[in-house]
């Protein structure tokens, strides 16, 4: 460790949706590295440790080193010439950058979609149909005496959700912390999260909806046949016991993961859980929150919603925003080979999209913004290296409970921020198009 050290107190970790804002970072300004991240979990420690400054070109065009300005020109040409471009990602960047990305989509008549569509997108669809009984993580910490984790593994994906908010911390009305809470975990397999639970309910794969619907019936006093156990792996007695606990707690919370959304049933599963929370409010206070993965995926939902009225999968090709999951979501646009160019910001679909979607990304011009080399930057025609949000870049991110938090960067980067690159692309595209691209067949009056 060098002598030119700086301590940044109450910095924010943007690895996951917990967005813990109590990090105390020791920064070596000569090496431009974070040497110590006090309060960070295992994931946060890796996040801070591994995001020093790497020796990478500012940009690559067709695999050749380029300046940022040259890459902006190349990216703008691609977007201005594309007929059905896709803008995707956005969950690991600031709200300020997200806002510019939506503006570009609007200007070029393209589609803007975020990693929400392959995360809690189905929950977003369910919110529209069923509604959401919600709370902040602070309320959960201070009030929840029954916590039900459903279809998730927070011990590995969101470690501090347990220690900071939902399992062990003492709260205003939970003075004894863990002793005052009953913790239930529902999953198809035992995970490192299981030991944290008082009650583990192991459901058969593809049975979440059936279990949730049976719980709804029991909450409403209806009869459920004991054969539910054969279908779901969960006995009627276990369900009745859970219902009794849920109706008699003071403040209950469902924290649900992608075991519901990435599974058969998708938004029906999320909707069933949200409806169960609503049902339980006839008896006591219940809330339900999706547990979010990326550091600012919740911000992406918020920004896209503010600007378009919809949270993800929004298309502007008619000159106004249209939302239609399945039509304007990235996996569908790529699998059906409809997108003819893609601007991918702070995301790596080439590492986790279905094979057919990745194959189409290889066919079309792709522009990436990412601090790291990834499978997606490797297939990109234009790849920008950008600074890391939260470590090098300030701005706003949203915690998984929709609470906005301002970032406190640790040290400067030689690379531009996503917002700077996107703003330059937006300005150049605007110059190339002479303003917003009008949809084919738009009334003449609209052009004046």
């Amino acid at each position, binding site marked *: 460790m060098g002598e030119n050290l700086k301590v940044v107190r109450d910095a924010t970790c943007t690895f996951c949706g917990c967005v813990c804002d109590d990090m105390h970072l020791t920064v070596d300004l000569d090496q431009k590295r974070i040497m110590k991240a006090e309060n960070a979990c295992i994931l946060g420690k*890796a996040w801070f440790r591994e995001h020093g400054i790497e020796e990478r070109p500012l940009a690559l065009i067709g695999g050749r080193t380029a300046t940022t300005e040259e890459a902006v020109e190349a990216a703008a040409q691609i977007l201005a010439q594309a007929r059905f471009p896709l803008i995707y990602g956005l969950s690991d960047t600031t709200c300020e950058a997200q806002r510019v990305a939506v503006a570009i989509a609007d200007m070029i008549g393209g589609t803007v*979609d975020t990693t929400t569509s392959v995360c809690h997108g189905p929950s977003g669809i369910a919110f529209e149909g069923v509604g959401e009984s919600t709370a902040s993580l602070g309320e959960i910490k201070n009030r929840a005496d029954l916590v039900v984790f459903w279809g998730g593994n927070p011990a590995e994906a969101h470690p501090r959700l347990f220690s900071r908010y939902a399992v062990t911390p003492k709260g205003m009305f939970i003075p004894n912390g863990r002793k005052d809470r009953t913790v239930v975990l529902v999953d198809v397999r*035992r995970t490192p999260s299981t030991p944290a639970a008082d009650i583990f309910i192991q459901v058969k*794969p593809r049975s979440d909806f059936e279990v949730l619907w049976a719980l709804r019936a029991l909450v409403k006093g209806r009869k459920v046949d004991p054969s539910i156990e054969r279908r779901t792996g969960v006995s009627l007695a276990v369900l009745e016991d859970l219902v009794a606990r849920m109706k008699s707690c003071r403040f209950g919370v469902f924290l649900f993961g992608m075991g519901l959304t990435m*599974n058969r049933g*998708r938004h029906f599963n999320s909707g069933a859980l949200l409806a169960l929370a609503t049902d339980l409010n006839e008896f006591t206070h219940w809330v339900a929150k999706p547990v979010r993965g990326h550091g600012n995926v919740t911000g992406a939902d918020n920004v896209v919603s503010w600007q378009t009225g919809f949270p993800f999968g929004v298309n502007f090709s008619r000159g106004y925003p249209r939302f239609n999951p399945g039509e304007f979501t990235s996996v569908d646009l790529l699998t059906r080979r409809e997108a003819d160019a893609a601007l991918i910001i702070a995301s790596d679909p080439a590492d986790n*999209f279905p*094979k057919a979607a990745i194959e189409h990304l290889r066919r079309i011009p792709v522009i990436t913004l990412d601090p790291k*080399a990834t499978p997606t930057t490797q297939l990109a025609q234009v790849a920008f290296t950008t600074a890391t949000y939260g470590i090098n870049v300030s701005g706003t991110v949203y915690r998984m409970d929709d609470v906005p938090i301002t970032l406190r960067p640790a040290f400067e980067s030689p690379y531009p921020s996503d917002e700077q690159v996107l703003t330059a692309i937006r300005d150049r595209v605007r110059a190339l198009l002479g303003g917003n691209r009008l949809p084919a067949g738009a009334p003449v009056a609209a052009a004046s």
Partner: protein
Amino acid sequence: MAEIMTLIGGRSSKQGTTLCASKLGAAYAEISSTLEMNVEDMARLGLSNNSKVRLRTPAGEAILRCKGRETKDLPPGILFMTYGPLSSQLMAGDTAGSGMPISKNLDVEVEPVRDENGP
């Protein structure tokens, strides 16, 4: 002989820490090409830790290395792997009009891979 089992894709803390370093590195490749499998299933298929196994779905196939899990941790017939380039090979692009491809509880054909370099 191939058997049909249920594959769950997901995250792990080791995957989370290795992806921070690099998604192009050996550690990430190793963690995302490891398949957790019930030990009784492995014994029946003649597999041991680190054996190669081929998974096949209508969308594609991938070869991974096995890691045994006791029945109390992973029931028979259930497989777990972390998301990454190989899980993508097995996922279909159809989202049933939702935007979300299915990546949990996939039916997969499981088949041991015998090669001359070992189990």
